């Protein structure tokens, strides 16, 4: 019971992370295409400036929660994905450096260089996170020791020796890229005006079609390769409500895309949350399925901490979340409205 509560809480934190850091990763990807002048680049940076590092704290908090609630899962996945996780850290570092350093020096070499680093690392992070999700859905080669090792790639198939990159995880990575381009473009469109906003809305429409097409493909593939998904929905069919919400939200994004309000961005946020929730719902009670032998998959009961720990953790998690919600509301109110470029910062 407590294990299920923590499963939902961890899934929720991951979803909040993807929604929040997702739009600033998306802004990083799209800024190379929608922001043509230096002023426009600074507008994009300023639209995420007060938020992006706070958004990344959700990744840290999610990792910390995983460590405490599902220690066996944390140990298995952080050592099994050791190299790609380290690469994610390097990309996060480079991206932070690019955001903070770019506007300090006015030079035709310095700024375009950091813009490229910012855009490139944002795109790679979106793909990496998608590939990570793909690995969890596909399953990893856990054995009786409770650990696994995955090479970066093997033959890109899911039949023989598994790799982190295969045709399935690459499709998930590209879907994540398209979805975050859409999400980021909608954020920048909401926070800016003029030509920059128009270009964002145009890009959002294109990304929408790409995301929708990839999503249909991905849904078919996922049910094909991971039987647990089909079994979960067959066993508890009321869960179809969650993917239904995702589809409705995605349609609303397309309908609202030209509205000059927060509506398209919020619809995209609901879409991301519902999409990730439907994956979590489909995997439940697994937290990390195994392939080729599904018996070694980690479930809530085999990965969770003791019930005493989970109970104490809940007592700390709730005030922690209230604090986080408080500063979240404060910053977003403080920096609401369209960004204006002034002399200082970014």
């Amino acid at each position, binding site marked *: 019971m407590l294990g299920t509560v923590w499963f939902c809480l961890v899934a929720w934190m991951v979803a909040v992370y993807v929604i929040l850091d997702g739009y600033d990763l998306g802004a990083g990807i799209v800024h190379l295409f929608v922001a043509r002048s230096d002023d426009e680049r600074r507008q994009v940076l300023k639209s995420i400036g007060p938020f992006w590092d706070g958004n990344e704290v959700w990744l840290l908090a999610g990792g910390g929660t995983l460590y405490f609630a599902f220690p066996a899962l944390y140990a298995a996945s952080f050592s099994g994905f050791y190299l790609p996780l380290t690469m994610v850290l390097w990309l996060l570092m480079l991206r932070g*450096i690019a955001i903070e350093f770019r506007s300090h020096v006015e030079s035709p070499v310095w700024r375009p260089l950091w813009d490229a680093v910012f855009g490139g690392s944002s795109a790679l992070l979106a793909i990496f996170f998608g590939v990570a999700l793909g690995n969890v859905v596909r399953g990893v080669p856990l054995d009786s020791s409770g*650990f696994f*090792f995955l090479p970066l790639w093997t033959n890109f198939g899911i039949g023989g020796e598994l790799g982190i990159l295969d045709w399935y995880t690459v499709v998930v990575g590209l879907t994540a890229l398209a979805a975050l381009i859409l999400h980021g473009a909608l954020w920048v469109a909401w926070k800016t005006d003029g030509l920059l906003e128009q270009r964002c809305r145009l890009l959002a429409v294109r990304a929408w079609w790409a995301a929708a097409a990839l999503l249909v493909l991905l849904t078919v593939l996922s049910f094909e390769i991971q039987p647990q998904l089909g079994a979960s929905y067959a066993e508890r069919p009321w869960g179809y409500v969650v993917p239904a919400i995702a589809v409705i939200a995605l349609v609303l994004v397309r309908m609202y895309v030209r509205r000059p309000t927060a509506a398209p961005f919020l619809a995209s946020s609901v879409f991301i949350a519902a999409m990730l929730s439907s994956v979590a719902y489909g995997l439940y009670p697994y937290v990390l399925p195994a392939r080729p032998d599904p018996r070694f998959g980690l479930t809530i009961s085999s990965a969770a901490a003791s019930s005493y720990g989970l109970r104490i953790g809940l007592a700390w998690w709730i005030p922690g979340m209230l604090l986080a919600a408080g500063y979240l509301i404060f910053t977003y109110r403080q920096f609401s409205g369209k960004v204006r470029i002034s002399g200082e910062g970014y």
Partner: protein
Amino acid sequence: MRTSIGRQPWLIYGLMRTASGPSPRVSAGNGLFTLMGFMGMYALLAILFLFLIYREIEHGPEAVHSVAGDALHPPAAVQ
């Protein structure tokens, strides 16, 4: 470093030995590669930091335009 070396051979004092700590599936090669990667990353950060700080010092502080003045620029010195 002092606390970690002084605690040896324990990872958690009295509970867990360092020898039973390492991840069984992470190879030494991966460990070395990421160690060098982090060293490279921090070296880059250090170089950028020194470059920007040097530039800032070179540039000097902005002139203070204050009617009331401050410790370094008493009102009498302001034109």
